C-alpha cells in the first residue's frame, strides 16, 4: 500500500516552490530576457525609450566582410592603396566597418573588415586560450593523477597539495602570479635567468601582447588542474585491476599498459574532463580582469571580458546581452559536438 502522505502533490509543490522560484527567477527569466534584450537597444540608464531593433545587435557584433583593392598611382608617382577608411565612408554597404586584417598580393590587397573588430579579436583570443589551456591543463591533470595513483608513500598529502589551488580564489591566485610574472623582479624571470646562467632576457610577460595570453594559460592550468586530477583519479580507480595484471602477464611495458589499458579505461572520463575544461575556458574573465584588463592592445580581451566591458561598464545592456548569448550558443554547441564525437568514439 502506498502511504497516503507520499501522494500529496500539493505538499510536494510546497516543498519545491522556494527552489523553483529561485531557479525560474534567477536563471530562466534572465535567460529569456537575454534573448529578448538582444533584439532591443536597451541601455541601463538612458533618456531614450527602448526600441525593438531586430537583429541589428547581431549584425553589429558579427558583421564581417572582405574587400579587394587594386593599387593606385599616388600623387608622388609611387603606387599604393587607397585608405580603407575612405572606401568604407564612400560605400554605404561598408558603413561602420573597420579593418581587422589585410594581405597583399602584388598589386592587389585583400582587407578583412569587421563591424566590431575588438569583439572578433576577443573571440579569437578566447579560442586561442581554450586551444592552449585545454590540452595543457588536461594532460597536467592526468599526469598528476597517475603520479598520485602510483602508490608512493604520502600520496594523500600530494593529492591535497596538487588540489589546493583549486579551492583558492582566482583573484588571489591572479594577484600572486602577477608578481611572479613581473618583468624586473618576478620570480619567473629570475628563475629563467638563473637557470640559463644569465643568458635569458627578462620578458615582460603580462605587458607584451605575444606573451600575455600564454602567461594567463600557464597560471590557469596551474590553478585548475587539481580539479581534473581528482576526476581522473576517480576514473583510474574504476579501471579493474585485473586488466593491468593480465597486461603484465602478457609482457606489456608500463607505457603499453598506459596506452592499452589506462587510456581506453579512461575514455569517458577524458571526454567529460575535456568538455568541462573547454566550457570553463570559454568563460575566461577573472584572470584577465585582475591581471591585464584585456591589454596590452586587446591581446587578452576575451568574450566574457568584452561582454562585461560593453554591457556593464559601458551600460549597453542590449549589446552585452548579445555577446553573452553568442557565448552561450558557442559553449552549448561545443558541448553537443564533443559529446557526440566522444560518444561515437566510445561506441566504435
Amino acid at each position: 500500500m502506498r502511504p497516503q502522505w507520499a501522494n500529496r502533490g500539493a505538499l510536494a509543490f510546497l516543498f519545491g516552490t522556494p527552489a523553483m522560484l529561485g531557479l525560474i527567477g534567477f536563471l530562466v527569466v534572465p535567460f529569456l530576457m537575454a534573448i529578448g534584450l538582444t533584439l532591443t537597444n536597451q541601455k541601463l540608464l538612458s533618456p531614450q525609450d527602448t526600441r525593438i531593433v531586430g537583429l541589428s545587435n547581431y549584425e553589429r557584433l558579427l558583421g564581417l566582410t572582405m574587400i579587394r583593392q587594386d593599387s593606385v598611382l599616388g600623387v608622388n608617382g609611387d603606387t599604393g592603396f587607397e585608405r580603407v577608411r575612405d572606401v568604407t565612408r564612400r560605400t554605404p554597404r561598408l558603413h561602420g566597418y573597420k579593418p581587422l586584417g589585410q594581405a597583399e598580393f602584388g598589386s592587389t590587397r585583400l582587407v578583412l573588415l569587421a563591424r566590431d573588430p575588438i569583439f572578433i579579436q576577443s573571440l579569437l583570443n578566447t579560442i586561442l586560450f581554450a586551444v592552449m589551456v585545454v590540452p595543457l591543463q588536461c594532460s597536467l591533470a592526468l599526469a598528476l593523477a597517475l603520479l598520485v595513483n602510483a602508490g608512493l608513500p604520502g600520496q594523500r598529502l600530494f593529492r591535497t597539495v596538487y588540489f589546493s589551488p583549486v579551492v583558492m580564489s582566482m583573484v588571489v591566485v591572479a594577484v600572486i602570479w602577477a608578481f611572479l610574472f613581473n618583468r624586473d623582479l618576478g620570480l619567473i624571470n629570475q628563475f629563467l635567468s638563473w637557470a640559463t646562467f644569465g643568458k635569458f632576457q627578462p620578458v615582460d610577460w603580462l605587458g607584451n601582447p605575444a606573451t600575455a595570453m600564454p602567461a594567463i594559460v600557464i597560471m590557469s592550468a596551474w590553478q585548475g588542474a587539481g580539479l581534473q586530477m581528482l576526476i581522473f583519479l576517480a576514473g583510474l580507480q574504476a579501471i579493474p585491476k585485473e586488466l593491468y595484471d593480465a597486461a603484465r602477464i602478457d609482457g606489456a611495458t608500463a607505457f603499453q599498459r598506459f596506452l592499452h589499458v589506462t587510456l581506453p579505461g579512461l575514455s569517458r572520463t577524458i571526454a567529460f574532463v575535456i568538455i568541462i575544461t573547454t566550457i570553463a575556458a570559454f568563460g575566461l574573465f577573472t584572470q584577465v580582469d585582475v591581471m591585464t584588463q584585456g591589454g596590452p592592445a586587446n591581446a587578452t580581451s576575451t568574450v566574457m571580458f568584452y561582454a562585461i566591458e560593453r554591457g556593464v561598464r559601458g551600460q549597453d545592456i542590449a549589446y552585452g546581452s548579445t555577446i553573452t548569448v553568442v557565448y552561450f550558443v558557442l559553449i552549448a554547441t561545443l558541448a553537443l559536438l564533443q559529446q557526440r564525437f566522444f560518444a561515437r568514439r566510445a561506441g566504435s
Partner: protein
Amino acid sequence: MKPPLNSKTAAQRIATYAIVLLFVVIFVSPFLFMLMASFKPNQQIFSDLSSIRAFLPVGSISLQNYRDVIGSSGIGRFALNSAFITIVTVCAGLFVNSLAAFALARLEWRGKGMVLGLIVVLLIIPLEAIAVPMMLMVAYLPTLGFEGGLSIQWSWLDTRLVQIVPFVANAFSIFFFYQAFSDIPRDFDEAAYVDGATPFQVYRHVIVPLSGTTFATVAIIQGLAAWNQYLWPVIVVPSEGARPLMVGLQQFFRFQTEWGEVMAYATLATLPVFLAFIFFQRWFVQSVMGSGVKG
C-alpha cells in the same frame, strides 16, 4: 587504490618520487612566496627575490603589513560582507535545495519527471550567460531600505542581498541531493509513515540524518563559490558598502604598490578557505570526486 608496487624497481620509484616532489614545489611555492612576502618590508621582498630567501621567513619579519592593511583598507568590512553572504547562501541553499530534492526523490506527484528534466537542462546555463540581463533585472527589484525610516527601494544594486538570493536555489545542488536521496532505501520512509510521521518529519528525521556527507559536500561547493565570487559582485556592487573580499583585494591590488601589504591582504582573504580546506579536506576531495563522476 592499491597500486602495482611489485613491478617497480627502486630506480623507477626514486624517479617517480622526484617528479612528484618537483610538482609539490611548483604547487606550493607561489603560496609560500605570498605568505613569506606578507611578513616582510617592501625593500626586503625585492632583495630576497633573487634567491631562495623569497620562500623563507628570514630578515626583518613582522606583522606590520597586516597592521597597515587592517587599519586602512576596509578589509574588515569586506570580510564581514563575504562571511555574511557565504553563511546565508549556504544555510538557505542547503535547506531550500534539499527540500526540493526531497519532493523530487521521495514524494509522488504529477509533473515530477518534467521538473527534473527542467533542472537537468538548467545545469548547462552558466552565470556568465545571464549575468548582463540579470543585472538589468536586479536594478529594478524592490527591497526594504532603512534610510530615513522604513522605505521601499527599487534597486538591488550595491546590496548584500543581490549577492545571496540569486545563488540560494541551485540546479546542481538539487540534482546532487536528488541522486543521494534516491539511493536511500524506501523502507525507511515507509516505516516512518506507518508510525504516523508527516513528510516534513520524514525529511527532517529520516533523510537529513542519513545524508550528512551530501550536505557537507553541497555546503562546500556552494560556500566556496559564494566566498570566491567575483564576476557577479563586479557587475552589481560598484561601491564599497556591500563589497565582498575578493573585489576588495582586486581593487587594493590595482591601486597599491606596497607588495607586502597586497600579499598580507591576499593571505587574509585566503586564510578562511585554507583553514576550512585543512580541516575538511576529506569532504573537499569527496565533493569534487562525487560531483565529477556523477555530474
